């Protein structure tokens, strides 16, 4: 349903950050985009959602298809109308608005008041904590609640494809589990595809069916979640387990011996 064909992105016409990224998101699936800082994961999401223009970025080559239609020349508004909604990285709530107002902003493009009301209840059902805080100013919510609010806001737009940028960022492990559980539930109950950017490889692969590993603006490895989980390199460099599958002992570390096989 979403297809990137060797997309290249440059900022300010000079700084090339994506060197031909291709990936695929099937309808109703969860796809994880993994990699370290600066690998180009967020840029990939912004290329899809049309937010690059706001940051002086541009797709210089390749194309993006949505159900067979090219969308790489469309702006953020048109892409949003197609049902592709991105939740930005780093708990970006509207600080001076209340929780409920934040959610209403998410539903701005929709006209059906009755359904919006129902979806508000649906989001509160997924995130009971938000319901308790509905009249509070969003800027004063805890980090976890803000992340829930950002995801809830994306849900309010009834997306066909929800793109989440590091939902685990800065949250306690228990909270991360909770949020991922809810993402999975939403994916199953609403048949919404999810494209997930994550550094926390273990948790991302626990709900994703397919994953791509990015480094320096390229996809270096891709495969089903099971394949990636059992890949030696992914285990070594992203999950922190040694080849034996046990916890890594730093006494025996000889990094120079083991090289990533994709290099």
């Amino acid at each position, binding site marked *: 349903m979403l297809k990137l064909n060797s997309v290249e992105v440059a900022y300010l016409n000079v700084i090339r950050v994506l060197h031909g990224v291709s990936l695929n998101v099937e309808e109703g699936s969860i796809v994880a985009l993994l990699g370290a800082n600066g690998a180009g994961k967020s840029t990939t999401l912004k290329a899809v*959602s049309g*937010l690059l*223009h*706001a940051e*002086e970025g541009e797709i210089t080559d390749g194309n993006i298809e949505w159900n067979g239609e090219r969308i790489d020349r469309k702006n*953020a*508004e048109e*892409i*949003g*109308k197609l049902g592709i*909604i*991105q*939740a*930005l990285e780093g708990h*970006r*709530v*509207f*600080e*001076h*608005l209340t929780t409920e*107002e*934040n959610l*209403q*902003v*998410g539903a*701005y*493009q929709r006209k059906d008041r009755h359904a919006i009301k129902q979806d508000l209840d649906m989001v509160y059902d997924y995130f009971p904590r938000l319901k308790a805080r509905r009249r509070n*100013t969003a*800027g*004063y919510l*805890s*980090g976890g609640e803000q992340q829930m609010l950002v995801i809830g*806001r*994306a849900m309010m*737009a009834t997306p066909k494809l929800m793109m989440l940028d590091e939902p685990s960022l800065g949250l306690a492990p228990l909270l991360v589990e909770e949020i991922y559980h809810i993402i999975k539930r939403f994916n199953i109950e609403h048949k919404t595809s999810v494209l997930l950017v994550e550094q926390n490889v273990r948790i991302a692969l626990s709900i994703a069916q397919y994953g791509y590993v990015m480094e320096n603006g390229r996809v270096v490895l891709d495969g089903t979640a099971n394949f990636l989980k059992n890949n030696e390199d992914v285990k070594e460099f992203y999950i922190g387990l040694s080849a034996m599958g046990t916890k890594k002992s730093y006494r025996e570390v000889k990094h120079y011996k083991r090289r990533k096989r994709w290099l």
Partner: protein
Amino acid sequence: MTELLQFVITGVTVGMVYSLIALGFVLIWKSSGVANLALGQLVLISSWFTYGMLVQVGLPLWLGFPAVILFALALGWIIEKFALRPLIAQPILSLITVTLGVAFFIEGATSFIWPKSVAALPRFFPQATVHIGTAVVSQEYLWAAVISFILFVLLSLYFKYHRMGIVMRAAADDQLAVQACGIPVTKIFSMAWMLACILAAIGGILMSSIGGITFGLTETGLKAFSVVILGGLDSFLGAIVAGPIIGLAESLGGGYLTPLTWPGVREIIPYITIIIVMFLKPYGLFGEARIERI
């Protein structure tokens, strides 16, 4: 005592009109981060347009005022669409400079279309004076206050409950996140400009019903600046509170200082206020605090 009461009433009522105009500034500042330097010129041209509709064309009031509002809407839309939108994503200073260009353009166009320097609107408020305590006030002042107050209430309801109003506040917090929700920010900017122009037009009508249409109306824009600086650039409440304060300072200072110093001292009082505020409280009285969780 009578004198004091008189000064207070005229100061507060005129100040409320300043607030009204200042709200237009805050709106644009909050939603797009642009300082609109054409505020006074917007007041000027819409006052002259009102004169054109009511006196030169001779429309009845019920037709003339909607025409002015439509004119203001169109003006805001055109300015945003043709002067500011091409510059989106350029340095903010360019955008602010463009508003200065718009100001000069409007000023030129106004004196081209209406070469007269002074005119009076027909009197549409009842002429009987009103006695408040010992003070005698002409009704224009009171109506100005009432209309401004009603508009404050309407605006705050709009921002609290209307979809577009909520989204405009959201854009003030985080533009990129608004775009990520698939909301066109350009629509928000153009809405802000249209609202600001309507407020400037209504402010212009109220001001010129009090003092006639003169070139001095552009100074209303400058006074509205001192209001926003005193109240805090990004605060609606600040603008509403600071307006009457500036109005009071102006009328009290003007009233009591003129005999002691020199004529025209009232004109500089708002600017003296700006300087003092800049020293003491650079973010203004109600500048929105950045929310930081600890």
